[in-house]
């Protein structure tokens, strides 16, 4: 690279190292990745010249503890004297000139230098011996973290390639231990297409397995499923039972999506292992798949994405967006194919990951259309899949909240209505949009007040017989803004059903909070509640069941002065049965009622 710039900034190398180690890289451990990356780049460059060349990397560890040393050797392209000067010059440049590229996509030589610098995190001296494949003398470079270095031409000629020697600096010997190095080499280099060997303590071993074909061509993965699953277990530490091959249209990104064998939290971190040009770039890449794909954990390789400066993540750019879209597409297509060809398999996956599937279905009609028959729901007909519920060929009622479902469940079961619990995370939304994907299906939202549609009205005689008592009862509950309605309905064991339209529910919660609030807030709640109060829909309704013997006696029997108290008790009882928290005045009412009941029962005992 010819350099037209006349002035250069002097870079304080120790300051730079401090920046690298404390701000850029997540751990000093990455020095090994940087060395491996340098070796890989060098081998790639050599293979560009000579495709028949077979790359090799070896690492040797010697001594223990504070004297430990590490040697990494590659048979890549090597560096000429000029190359060495060039990368040193690159480091000396202000990073401004190339912007973020200093650490991003620079030339091989530039990156090489930066990678080498990262070794100062664990070593106070770097010795590099290198012989360029294009000839010239072998070079020795010795660098120190204070920025001083020496370059020497060697008299003997080495075989082409580069060796880097590191001596551990105080308190970094951990990074030179055989187990650590072995783990990290595998970690970073598992997908490299040439052997990495490690020798330590007189033992030499190959670190990375032969790269299986189906990693490079995921379409082959279905040919050897057991091997794919075993590989996944080794690389991702979980025992999987199912996987989906991934590939983008460019063919420059691919891999395997393993279906997680357990349910996952929607907010959980997604930790896919992603390899850039065969080197591990991240174990926490959470932005390489669409958010909805949380039921898979992936091994992905790519050579079309740009890493961030730390080389631990990818830049969020259009390229990444396209790749993310296409990988998502691959998962979707696989699920669609399963729905056509292998329904048992799909069913197993859906059951395990119902929540995330529902979330996806809410956002994506096409996916919903494909998957809907397998999504599980809770209903008055039991826990069933939506497909099974549709096959009942009944009107599909759903409630908007869990509370509505709980209130209505018994009443609805007694009248054999098919009611689906829509109050659980995404259910109501899904059921609401069901008509959009299945036109003509009879789906209706059921409000507590709608249940009364199935209730029987009283006949004219009954109406006049109960009129007086009904009016008195209505008056008794007026202060709770609750109306009573007398009906006949199943089951007869149920004396009363309390229903709360949405506005009434809001008002109820405002009033209960207001009882507890400081003045400034109580008045605001008063204003907010005030606007709702005028409307009829802000009244709750207490349905009293004339089929119930007690209710029948109370309303059609001899009139009693105790009616008020008894209706209030039925009201309180219905609130409790419906799991409604009670306000202070309602609690007081119940206490008073219970005391009255005790009092009356003792009186009647006296009478006996």
């Amino acid at each position, binding site marked *: 690279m010819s350099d037209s710039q006349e002035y250069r900034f002097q870079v304080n190398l120790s300051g730079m190292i401090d920046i690298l180690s404390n701000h850029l890289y997540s751990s000093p451990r990455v020095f090994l990745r940087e060395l491996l990356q340098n070796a890989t780049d060098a081998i790639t460059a050599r293979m560009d010249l000579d495709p028949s060349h077979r790359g090799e990397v070896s690492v040797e560890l010697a001594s223990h503890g504070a004297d430990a040393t590490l040697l990494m050797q590659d048979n890549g392209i090597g560096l000429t004297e000029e190359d060495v000067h060039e990368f040193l010059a690159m480091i000396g440049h202000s990073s401004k000139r190339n912007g973020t590229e200093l650490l991003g996509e620079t030339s091989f030589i530039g990156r090489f230098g930066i990678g080498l610098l990262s070794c100062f995190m664990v070593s106070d001296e770097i010795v590099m011996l290198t012989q360029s494949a294009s000839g010239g003398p072998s070079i020795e470079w010795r660098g120190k973290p204070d920025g001083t270095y020496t370059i020497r031409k060697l008299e003997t000629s080495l075989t082409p390639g580069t060796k880097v020697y590191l001596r551990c600096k105080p308190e970094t010997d951990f990074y030179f231990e055989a187990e650590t190095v072995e783990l990290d080499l595998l970690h970073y280099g598992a997908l490299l297409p040439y052997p990495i060997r490690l020798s330590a303590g007189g033992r030499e071993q190959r670190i990375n397995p032969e790269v299986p074909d189906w990693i490079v061509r995921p379409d082959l993965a279905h040919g050897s499923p057991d091997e794919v699953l075993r590989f996944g277990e080794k690389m991702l530490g979980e025992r999987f039972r199912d996987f989906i091959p991934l590939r983008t249209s460019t063919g420059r990104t691919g891999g395997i999506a393993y279906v997680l064998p357990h349910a996952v939290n929607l907010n959980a971190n997604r930790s896919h292992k992603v390899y850039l040009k065969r080197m591990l770039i991240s174990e926490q890449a959470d932005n390489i798949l669409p958010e909805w794909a949380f039921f898979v954990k992936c091994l992905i390789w790519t050579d079309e994405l740009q890493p961030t400066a730390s080389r631990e993540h990818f830049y969020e750019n259009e390229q990444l967006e396209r790749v993310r879209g296409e990988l998502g597409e691959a998962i979707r297509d696989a699920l669609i194919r399963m729905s056509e060809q292998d329904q048992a398999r799909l069913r197993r996956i859906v059951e395990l990951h119902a929540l995330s599937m529902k979330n996806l279905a809410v956002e994506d009609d096409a996916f919903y259309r494909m998957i809907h028959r397998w999504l599980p729901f809770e209903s008055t007909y039991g826990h069933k899949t939506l497909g099974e519920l549709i096959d009942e060929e009944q009107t599909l009622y759903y409630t908007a909240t869990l509370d509505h479902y709980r209130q209505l469940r018994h009443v609805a079961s007694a009248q054999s209505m098919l009611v689906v619990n829509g109050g659980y995370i995404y259910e109501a939304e899904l059921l609401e949009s069901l008509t959009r994907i299945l036109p003509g299906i009879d789906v209706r939202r059921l409000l507590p007040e709608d249940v009364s549609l199935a209730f029987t009205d009283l006949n004219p005689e009954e109406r006049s017989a109960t009129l007086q008592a009904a009016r008195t009862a209505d008056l008794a509950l007026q202060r709770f803004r609750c109306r009573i309605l007398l009906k006949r309905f199943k089951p007869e064991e149920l004396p009363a059903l309390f229903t709360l339209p949405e506005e009434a529910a809001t008002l109820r919660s405002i009033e209960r909070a207001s009882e*507890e*609030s400081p003045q400034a807030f109580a*008045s605001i709640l008063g204003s907010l509640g005030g606007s709702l109060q005028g409307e009829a829909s802000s009244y709750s309704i207490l349905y009293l069941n004339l089929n119930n013997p007690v209710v029948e006696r109370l309303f059609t029997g001899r009139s009693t002065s105790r009616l008020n108290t008894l209706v209030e008790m039925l009201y309180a009882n219905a609130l409790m049965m419906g799991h409604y928290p009670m306000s202070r005045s309602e609690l007081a009412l119940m206490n008073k009622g219970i005391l009255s009941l005790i009092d009356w029962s003792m009186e009647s005992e006296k009478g006996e």
Partner: protein
Amino acid sequence: MDHFEAEFEDLMTEAYGLPNGAAKMALLERAAELADLAGNIEAGYEAREEIVEVGSFGGFPLKAIVAYSWQLGQYDRNPEAYEAHTLHWNYKWVIDDVPSFPDVPAQQIESLLEDLRRRYREYGVSDRTYWYYRFRISMYMGDLDKAGEYLNEFRKLKRDAMSDCSACELDEQVRYLLLTGQDEAAVKKAQPIVKGRQRCAHVPHATLPFLLLPLHRLGRTEEADKLQPESYKLIRDNLTFVHEFGEHIGYLSIVDPQKALPLLERHLPQVEGHEDPLNRMMFYWNAAALLQKLIRTGETFVLNLPPSSRFYDLADNHDELRHKLETEAFAIAQSLDTRNANTYYTEYGKELLKERG
């Protein structure tokens, strides 16, 4: 009691795993009810603390106000039992939403601001946050002169433990510049946000939608075009951004109305049931502007609304739908203006329709 605790913990754990939204809110409300049924005030407080957060950042301001009122009452009765920092901090979220409700008289908002000032002083922080919220609330109430004065007061004081994050503060100052018609200054001030140097959970989500039209007006159409999809992606799943949905529709109405239709279809059914009248109004106006634009230019288009929507019957009757949205928006504007004793929002709506319709 053990049974209660297990069920309560299950609900809370499940809620923590969800994004801020209706599903999470439903679980938390259920948890609060269980706590109330069991008479467990600490648990009720814990659930409501979450309700306040989800309500403030997930599109349920009324629920947040109600839950917070209850919490504050419990705290006043027994200050030792609860964590003061969070409670004081959350006051800001709640007070910020109150002016959206026209039923709350100006005098009560005033009392609330003074209550916040008193409590904050007792808690040992300066009036900075008080002035900052006066500034914000004056903007919401259409009094931009006052807002400017309060902004100056706020700038005089040093940040402290109750200060909003610097990204949020910057966002509000950008808003002030926009509302006072200073497009260029606003866009410039917003640069750290646009570039991603200033960000938090709420910024740039809440900032970018309001920069689309100013950029367009400044002739920087390419930037606006590029920003629109990026900005929309940040907000589309969160119902706290109703006004922002509207801004996107309004912007698209000017540059590419057909593209705004999917947004309208997606969000109108969500917005019609939204608690916040002010944000609903803003959305309706932008929706009406879009329909007006499409009708005016004679473009053919279809609108697909779900049967559960209040506007379902009008899906094919575009002009009537437009009229209805407009009327409802102006009705809210009227009630806000009456409360605020000005004509700010009514004028705002007319201008908006003129520019975007």
